[in-house]
C-alpha cells in the first residue's frame, strides 16, 4: 500500500524547477502536501527504511538523488533497511 501524498511529492520533484525549489526551501514545498506526521518526520530524518515501504522504489531512489544524498549513502541505508525489495518485485510470484 502506497502513501499517496508522499508519492505525489516525490513524483512532482521530477521537474528541475520543483527540485531546485525543494533544495532551496524544503519547508515551503512540504507545506503544500498533507503529509501524515510520521511520514513528515521520516522525510526530515532522511529515514530511508521508514519511507521505503510507502513509496515506489524508483521514486524513492530518485528522491534521494534530488535531496542530495550520495548514491553510496542511499545504498548503505536501503541495504540495512530490512526492506526485502519493491512491491512490484514481491508481487511477481503472486501475479505469475
Amino acid at each position: 500500500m502506497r502513501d499517496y501524498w508522499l508519492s505525489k511529492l516525490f513524483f512532482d520533484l521530477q521537474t528541475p524547477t520543483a527540485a531546485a525549489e525543494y533544495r532551496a526551501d524544503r519547508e515551503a514545498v512540504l507545506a503544500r502536501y498533507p503529509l501524515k506526521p510520521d511520514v513528515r518526520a521520516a522525510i526530515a530524518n532522511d529515514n530511508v527504511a521508514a519511507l521505503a515501504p510507502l513509496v515506489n522504489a524508483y521514486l524513492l531512489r530518485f528522491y534521494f538523488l534530488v535531496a542530495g544524498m550520495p548514491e553510496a549513502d542511499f545504498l548503505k541505508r536501503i541495504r540495512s533497511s530490512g526492506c526485502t525489495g519493491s512491491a512490484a518485485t514481491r508481487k511477481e510470484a503472486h501475479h505469475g
Partner: protein
Amino acid sequence: MADLVGIYAASHGPLIVRNWDVLPAATRSTLTTAFTELGRRINAARPDVLIVISPDHWVNFFLDNLPSICIGVGETHAGPPEPWLAAFPHKQMAGHAALAQHIAAHACDHDFEPSVSYKLALDHGFCIPLWKANLDPLPAIVPVIINTVEPPLPSPTRCIALGNAIAAAVKSFPEPLRVALLATGGMSHSIGEPTMGAIDEAFDRECLQHLAAGNSDESRNTLLKFLAARLPAAGNGAAEMRNWLTAHGAAGAVGFDLIHYSAMPEIYVGCGVAAWAV
C-alpha cells in the same frame, strides 16, 4: 495487409546516456557495437511504423490512474522530459493514430483491457534505444506501455498473449504498411531496492536460452515456469522482461538471434540486445 517486418529488443538503462562520458572505453565500445547492429537491422527492415513496447517510468502516469497496459493513439508524441535527455534529437515524434487505434480496438475485441492515450511523452525507456540505434529515418512510433514499475502489472502469460494479439492486429490492418516492433528494458536489474547494482547473470542467460527455444506450447510453458520461479529474485527492473515477452509473443515462432549480452554493473543492468525472426 500490413506486414510485420522485424521484432527486436534492447535494454535501456539510463546510465547509458547519463554516465556515457565516464563509462569505461570498453563498455562504450561494446554498447556502440550492439546498438549500431540493432540500428542496422531495423533500418534494413525499412519499417514505416515502429511499435515500441516500454514501461513508463513515472513520466505520464501516477497513482491517480495507473494502467496495466496503455496504447498511444496520438498523431504525435513528445520527446523525453528527463533533463539529462535534453540532447535527444526529436522534440516531437510522429505517431500512427490509425494503426494504434486499430491495435487498441483489436485488443478490446480479444479480451484485453488497455487504456489509451492521445498525449504521451516518450521517456528514456523509448528514447535511449531509438537514439543509440540511430534510426534514419525515424519511423512513426506506436507506443505500447506495459506497466512494470508498480502494480498493477500484467502477468507474463498475458504479455505473451498481448504480443500475439498485436501481431494479429498488424496483419489485419487494412492498409499496406511495413511495421516493426521493438521491446525495451531489462534484463535483470534493481532500482532503489537493496539489491540495486546486482545483476543476475545466470537468470539472464537462462532466460535468453528459453527465448531462443521458440514459442511452441511446450517452450512457452517452460519459459513461464522458469519466470515464475526466478523473475521475483532478479530485481524490480527485471519486471521489464514483460516487454521482451510481448515481443516473443508477437514473433510466435522459432528464430531468436542474440546480438549482444553482457552483465554491465557499471550501468546497473544485464544488457541484452536481440532480434527475432519474422
